[in-house]
C-alpha cells in the first residue's frame, strides 16, 4: 500500500526550500516553541505515542529512548543530544536529502529533542564528504540563531539550546553510536563496550541520547499532528511502528531515488511503483535496507503459519508484499535497516555482488576485535579467489564457518553486519555459488553492470 506523504519533503522541490523563510511559511518552528512550553513528561509521552522507530536501522522506539535519560539532570552532569548523520551504509542516501533540502526540520527537531532529554547542546555528526549537507545545516543553524530560536533564550523562553555540526573523517564504523561518540570526543572511532549505555555514559562521559537524523527531523511533524495521529498514518500502527518515513531505492531500477510515504510500503511498491520497475531484466533479489540487511530472493514466500507471528497475515504470499516494518522484516530473517533497498536484476551476478560488499566490510572494519578484523579480510580473500575462478566447494563451507565465528564475538554490531549478509548470500545463492566455482565463473554473466 503506497501512500505518499509530504511532511518531511514538502519543500524538496521549492526554490530556496532549505531556507528559513520557506520553512516558516509552512509552520516551521511553531512546534519547537510549543515544546519549550510543555512539561518534559508530556513531551516524552507524546513522542512515545508517536511510535517513531529509529530511522537509522536499529528501529528502537525513540520516545522510550528519550525516557531512559536520568531525571532530573544534575548540574555537574550535563546531558547531550547527538544526531547520527554518518550515513555510510551502502544503499542508503536518505539523510543527505534532508540535510540538503530540509535542514530546518533537523534543527527544530534538535531543539525539541534537547528539551525532551534535558540537554542544552546538540551535536550533529555528519560524515565529512557531505560538504553541501554541512553547509546547509550550518546555514540553518545560523538563520535560526539570528531569529532567536537558538541561544540563551530560544523564543524568549529560559531554556538555552545550542546546535553544532561535527564532522567525521571517513570511517563507516562511526555510524555505530558508541564509535561515533568516541569520534566526537576526538578519538579513534572505535566502538565501546555496552553497558554502560550512552544514556548513562555517553558523550564526554555524560548522559547522552543518540538519534538518527531522520528520526529527529520527524519530531516536529509528530508533535504537530499529535503523537497518536502521527503513529496512525502507518499501516503498522498496531505493531507500534508509526508515522511516515523516507524510503529509497537504487540499483537496477528505472527510477532510483528517495520518496516519503506512510509506513506500510512494500518492496513491490518500492521497486515497481516508485522505482519504475527493474531494468536490465527480471528481478533477482533485493537487499531491503542497506547492505547489512540480509538479501531476499524475489521468489521467496512468507512462511508464518502461526498467528503469533507478525508475518501471519502474509503467510503464503511473496516477501515482496510484506509491509516494510521493523518487526515484519526481523521476522523475515532480515532487517528493515534504513528502508533504502538495493535491487539486483537477474543479469547481475550474485557472487560478484557479495564480493563487492565484502570488500566494503573488510575496508571498514575498525580493527578493534579480532574476529571482525580477520574474519572480514578472510571472507574477502576467499571470495577474491572464487571470483577469479580459483575457488573450491570446500571454501564455501569455510565461508559459512568464518561468518558463524564472527557472529556474537565482537564489541559492536559491525561483526553481525558483516556476517549476516554474508550468510544470507551463501544460503540463498548456494546453487549459483556452486555453479560459479565448478565452471570457474563461466556459468555466470560475470558482471554487475549488464
Amino acid at each position, binding site marked *: 500500500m503506497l501512500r505518499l506523504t509530504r511532511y518531511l519533503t514538502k519543500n524538496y522541490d521549492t526554490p530556496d526550500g532549505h531556507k528559513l523563510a520557506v520553512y516558516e511559511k509552512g509552520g516551521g518552528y511553531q512546534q519547537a516553541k510549543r515544546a519549550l512550553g510543555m512539561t518534559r513528561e508530556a513531551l516524552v509521552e507524546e513522542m512515545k505515542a508517536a511510535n517513531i522507530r529509529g530511522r537509522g536501522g536499529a528501529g528502537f522506539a525513540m520516545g522510550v529512548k528519550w525516557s531512559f535519560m536520568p531525571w532530573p539532570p544534575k548540574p555537574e552532569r550535563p546531558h547531550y543530544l547527538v544526531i547520527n548523520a554518518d550515513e555510510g551504509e551502502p544503499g542508503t542516501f536518505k539523510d543527505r536529502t534532508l540535510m540538503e533540502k530540509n535542514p530546518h526540520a533537523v534543527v527544530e527537531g534538535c531543539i525539541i529533542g534537547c528539551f525532551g532529554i534535558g540537554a542544552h547542546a546538540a551535536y550533529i555528526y555528519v560524515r565529512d564528504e557531505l560538504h553541501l549537507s554541512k553547509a546547509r545545516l550550518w546555514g540553518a543553524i545560523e538563520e535560526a540563531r539570528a531569529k532567536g530560536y537558538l541561544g540563551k533564550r530560544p523564543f524568549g523562553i529560559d531554556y538555552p539550546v545550542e546546535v553544532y555540526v561535527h564532522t567525521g573523517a571517513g570511517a*563507516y564504523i562511526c555510524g555505530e553510536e558508541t564509535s561515533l561518540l568516541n569520534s566526537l570526543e*576526538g*578519538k*579513534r572511532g572505535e566502538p565501546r563496550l555496552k553497558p554502560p549505555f550512552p544514556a548513562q555514559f555517553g558523550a564526554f562521559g555524560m548522559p547522552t541520547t543518540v538519534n538518527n537524523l531522520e528520526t529527529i527531523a520527524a519530531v516536529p511533524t509528530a508533535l504537530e499532528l499529535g503523537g497518536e495521529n502521527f503513529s496512525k498514518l502507518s499501516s503498522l500502527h498496531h505493531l507500534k511502528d508509526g508515522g511516515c518515513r523516507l524510503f*529509497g*531505492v537504487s540499483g537496477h531500477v528505472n527510477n*532510483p531515488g528517495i520518496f516519503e510515504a506512510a509506513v506500510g510500503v512494500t518492496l513491490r511498491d518500492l521497486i515497481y511503483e516508485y522505482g519504475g520497475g527493474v531494468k536490465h531484466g527480471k528481478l533477482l533479489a533485493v537487499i531491503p535496507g542497506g547492505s547489512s540487511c540480509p538479501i531476499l530472493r524475489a521468489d521467496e514466500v512468507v512462511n508464518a503459519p502461526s498467528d503469533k507471528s507478525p508475518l501471519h497475515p502474509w503467510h503464503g504470499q511473496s516477501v515482496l508484499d510484506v509491509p516494510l516494518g521493523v518487526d515484519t522484516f526481523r521476522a523475515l530473517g532480515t532487517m528493515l535497516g534504513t528502508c533504502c533497498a538495493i535491487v539486483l536484476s537477474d543479469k547481475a551476478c550474485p557472487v560478484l555482488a557479495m564480493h563487492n560488499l565484502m570488500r566494503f566490510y573488510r575496508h571498514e572494519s575498525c580493527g578493534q576485535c579480532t574476529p571482525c578484523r580477520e574474519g572480514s579480510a578472510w571472507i574477502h580473500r576467499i571470495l577474491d579467489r572464487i571470483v577469479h575462478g580459483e575457488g573450491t566447494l570446500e571454501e564455501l563451507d569455510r565461508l559459512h564457518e568464518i561468518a558463524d565465528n564472527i557472529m556474537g564475538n565482537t564489541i559492536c554490531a559491525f561483526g553481525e553486519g558483516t556476517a549476516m549478509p554474508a550468510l544470507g548470500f551463501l544460503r540463498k545463492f548456494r546453487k549459483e555459488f556452486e555453479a560459479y566455482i565448478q565452471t570457474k565463473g563461466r556459468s555466470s554473466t560475470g558482471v*554487475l553492470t549488464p
Partner: protein
Amino acid sequence: MTEQFALTAERRTELEKILARYPNRQAACIPVLHLCQEQEGWVSERVLRWVAEQLGLSAAHVQGVATFYTLFNKEPVGKHQVWVCRTLSCALNGADQVLHHCEKRLGIHAGETTKDGRITLRTAECLASCGTAPMMQVDRDYHEGLTLEKVDAILDRLTR
C-alpha cells in the same frame, strides 16, 4: 629542526570558533586536523605535533586519530582529488567502467597521482549517492549520474 607549522590568521579565528563548541580541547582533534589539512593538503609530522601541542594531547594520540580516518592524507596529494565510488549501487550502474576510464585517461592506477601533480585518483566506499549512481567526488563536489562523456568533461576541466 624543521620550521614550526602555523595556521593562517583566518584559520586561526576558525580554530577559536571550533574550540568554543566543545567542553574540552580533545574533542576538537578531528575538526582541527581538517583545518590544517585544508591549508597544507595533508597532515605532516609537523602538523601532527602542532595539533597535539595546541590541544594538549600526546603526539601519539593525534597520530592514532589521523591514521584511523581515511580522509586524512598521510602524504602529499595532487592539486585535485578524485574519488570514484565503487560500492554496490554504483557498481550495479557502471562504477567499474568509470574507474577504468579515469585510469586510462589519466595514465595512473587508483591510489596514484599524475606525474604533473594535478590529480590524485582514488576509490571510495559508498558516498551516500546510491540513487544517482554512478558517481564520483572531485575535491568538495559530487558529480552524479555519470556517463563516460560526463567523466571526460570533468577531467578536461581539471587537466586544462
